[in-house]
């Protein structure tokens, strides 16, 4: 009995420890006392640290003969990954941390800046990339562009403080998306054929058949050809998948906000960059403000948006209604998804990735066509790929299976055209203000090094995702990307990006609302029922898109707004 008791206690201890998020203290590589150490803090999230390990090797090699401290030569980059290097937790702890440079997310930039937590890196951002921080001279070997030259205007406008200084740089480019299984789409011929071709459902009958031009309406851009161009097409595809015993879509029941964030992507894509930015700048003419409905058709007017009536875009922008309509139609047909999974809190994002990936191999699992997730998903689900590869061979590996991001379908054929992508997660890279003065040039050199074209390309080739900068990729670099990476490349190159940041009082007063993306779907439906998640509202309580949209207007009203400006 005592042995059983002891066994139970040991088991429980192991279970408890297994659940603890213990940072791997002591697992950092040992410091080489002959070199100067540069400590890097990396948020232990979807992007991993493989890309940083590669940068480390090249950076250490570049400065191997340079002395930063008396009696030492070269630099040793020591990387620590932690789930605590994020957001408010990091804000509270950074002053006491050893790490000199951070790559993280969910950062309230101006809180960090105002508390003096970040080092001024204006020179890193504005000096050309051939400027050597260690020697204070320019070299002739590297790029003449500055990091600022590669940045998007939205990032510059937000990150450059009123006193014209930079304290941080955007880290990664991420958005919530529909991810589809290219292998499955090809095996099952799930692409739309060009008008007049294809089978009776409008789909290709062989892979060589010419495909429809896709949501951008341009047959020249082949990456989206054959994909659903409109919402109507999307549901035609879903019906076609159901006929073929494929479950069209899945997502994590545990994080319904992924669905909400996808809706924000739909909303953004409909409105376009200029209109969408009114939600943050409150300055300009909103072309699509819904003032009522004529039957089921929204009546739209243009309105001047200022800080006084900024609530109008949140409550009444037409793109939100269309996004909700899409969701309503998706949820209306239970064969499009497995409700016992996608509404179960037991299905985490990892489980959803697992189901999406393993359906092809496990006969008991559904074969699933699409996944709602963030664009970092493939890195995050590395262990599932590894397990499948072990069980089913190299065809199941991350390198060999083919997935791609599905461009957001347009509301109808009149809206085909450019893609607009909503950047998620408030990611950021910066230098800790507590760094010793003598070490600052080294940290700056590292920040600069990470933003050279070579490093940016290396990041992309390693993670199959992008950093939010303009950078050149050679064709052979692009060819090395997985189909997933290549599909993101097309978006990165061709889409217009909404950087949901602005420097104004209303925005900064409500930054946690903007940053967390959850509260922006708050709605007061049918009088006083408050909802924050459209998918569960529609699924559980049969709330219609129109009722939810009406609820957004009720929630984002003048009184609520005035309390917050």
């Amino acid at each position, binding site marked *: 009995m005592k042995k059983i008791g002891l066994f139970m206690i040991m088991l429980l201890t192991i279970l408890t420890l297994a659940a603890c998020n213990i940072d791997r203290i002591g697992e950092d590589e040992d410091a080489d006392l002959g070199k100067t150490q540069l400590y890097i803090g990396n948020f232990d999230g979807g992007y991993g640290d493989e890309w940083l390990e590669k940068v480390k090797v090249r950076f250490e090699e570049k400065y191997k003969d340079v002395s930063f401290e008396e009696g030492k030569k070269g630099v040793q980059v020591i990387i620590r990954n932690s789930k605590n290097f994020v957001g408010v937790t990091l804000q509270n702890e950074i002053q006491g941390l050893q790490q000199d440079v951070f790559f993280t997310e969910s950062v309230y930039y101006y809180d960090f800046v105002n508390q003096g937590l970040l080092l001024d890196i204006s020179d890193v951002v504005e000096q050309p990339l051939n400027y050597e921080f260690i020697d204070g001279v320019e070299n002739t070997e590297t790029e003449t562009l500055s990091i600022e030259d590669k940045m998007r205007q939205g990032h510059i406008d937000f990150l450059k403080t009123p006193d014209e200084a930079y304290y941080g740089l955007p880290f990664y480019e991420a958005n919530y998306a529909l991810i589809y299984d290219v292998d499955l789409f090809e095996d099952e011929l799930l692409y739309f054929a060009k008008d007049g071709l294809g089978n009776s459902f409008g789909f290709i009958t062989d892979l060589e058949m010419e495909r429809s031009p896709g949501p951008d309406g341009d047959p020249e851009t082949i990456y989206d050809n054959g994909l659903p161009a409109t919402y109507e097409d999307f549901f035609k595809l879903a019906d076609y998948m159901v006929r073929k015993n494929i479950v069209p879509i899945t997502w994590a029941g545990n994080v319904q*906000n992924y669905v909400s964030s996808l809706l924000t992507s739909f909303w953004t894509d409909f409105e376009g960059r200029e209109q969408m930015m009114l939600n943050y700048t409150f300055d300009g003419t909103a072309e699509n403000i819904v003032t009522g409905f004529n039957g089921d058709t929204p009546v739209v007017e243009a309105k001047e948006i200022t800080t006084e009536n900024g609530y109008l875009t949140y409550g009444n922008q037409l793109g939100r209604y269309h996004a909700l309509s899409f969701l309503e139609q998706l949820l209306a047909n239970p064969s499009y998804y497995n409700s016992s999974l996608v509404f179960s809190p037991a299905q985490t994002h990892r489980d959803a990735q697992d189901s999406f990936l393993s359906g092809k191999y496990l006969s008991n699992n559904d074969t699933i066509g699409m996944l709602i997730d963030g664009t970092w998903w493939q890195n995050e689900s590395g262990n599932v790929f590894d397990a499948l590869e072990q069980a089913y061979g190299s065809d199941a590996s991350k390198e060999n299976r083919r997935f791609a991001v599905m461009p957001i379908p347009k509301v109808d054929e009149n809206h085909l055209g450019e893609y607009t992508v909503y950047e998620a997660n408030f990611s950021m890279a910066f230098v800790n203000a507590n760094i010793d003065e003598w070490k600052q040039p080294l940290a700056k050199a590292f920040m600069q090094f990470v933003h050279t074209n070579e490093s940016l390309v290396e990041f992309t080739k390693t993670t199959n995702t992008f950093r939010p900068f303009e950078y050149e990729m050679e064709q052979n670099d692009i060819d090395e990307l997985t189909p997933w990476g290549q599909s993101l490349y097309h978006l990165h190159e061709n889409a217009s990006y909404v950087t949901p940041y602005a420097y104004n009082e209303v925005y900064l007063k409500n930054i*946690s609302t903007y940053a967390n993306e959850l509260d922006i779907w708050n709605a*007061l439906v049918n009088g006083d029922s408050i909802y924050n998640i459209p998918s569960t509202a529609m699924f559980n309580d049969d709330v219609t898109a129109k009722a939810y949209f009406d609820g957004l207007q009720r929630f984002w009203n003048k009184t609520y707004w005035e309390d917050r400006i």
Partner: protein
Amino acid sequence: MEGNYIDRLKTKFKREKTKNLLFYIVILAFPISQFLVFYVGVNFNSILLAFRGYDIDQGKFYWNGLDNFVKVFNDFQDMALFEIAFKNSIIAFMFGLLFGILFGLLFSYYIYKKLFGHKLFKVVLFIPSIVSSIVMVTIFMQFVESGIPNIIEQIFNIRIMGLLANSDLTFTTILFYNVWIGFGVSTLLYVGAMNSINISIIESAQIDGVNTIQEFRHIIMPLIWPTFTQFVVVSVGAIFMNQLSLYAFYGQGAEVRLYSFGYFLYKEVIVAANVDLPYLATIGIILTFITVPITLVIKWALQKYGPSTE
């Protein structure tokens, strides 16, 4: 000679006393400084925050009188979210009080009486209290989302949704979970209190012919009443702090209809920007003002009207 000896003794005694005092101070210095910094300091700062605003341009807090209180009271009136959080917090408290304490007492009495399987029972009840909440929530979710539907399907050949996925049952299932994981602590305390009852009292009552129910009602309950009171008072004090394990279930993404004040405050605080802190501190203070008098009244009532040990 004798005087010298007494003087030496006195000096030695003084030296010992000083040494003991020093030891005592050294031992207490660390916990007291911790208490001052991490309890008094933190809470004092929270109280001050409630009377401050945050200047976006300067990045500094400034005094703004009662502005935050006005804003919070307005939001209490206008925002349905607070109504839900208030209602759910009260329901969770009542549910816990009714089922948690009632069954906690019954289970404890069962274990105290050393009835069949009491040791196993004790372990089973106590396990949730020592296993990480994330592990427990994961196990529980798998059980109610996969286990129960599969069992039902096996027996009745009907496929049902998981208890959490079924919106009609979600909140009740979460309430059940919270009561269940609370049994470990309550059982431990009640059994401890019951075991401290002098066995001769029980034996004499048994000689007088009391049955089990009478023994529980007239002997056990009065004698563990201080423990019971303590338990109820602590529960009342935590009405608005109970986050119902929602963060472990849903992270940031619980539906508003499930919110309790504890969850709302917890989830807001961990993503709060500096500008949000005064508002949240004000909510905390207002809830404290609501909770403190209720707690004191209930404590007084339980002590005054509780069963006598005479």
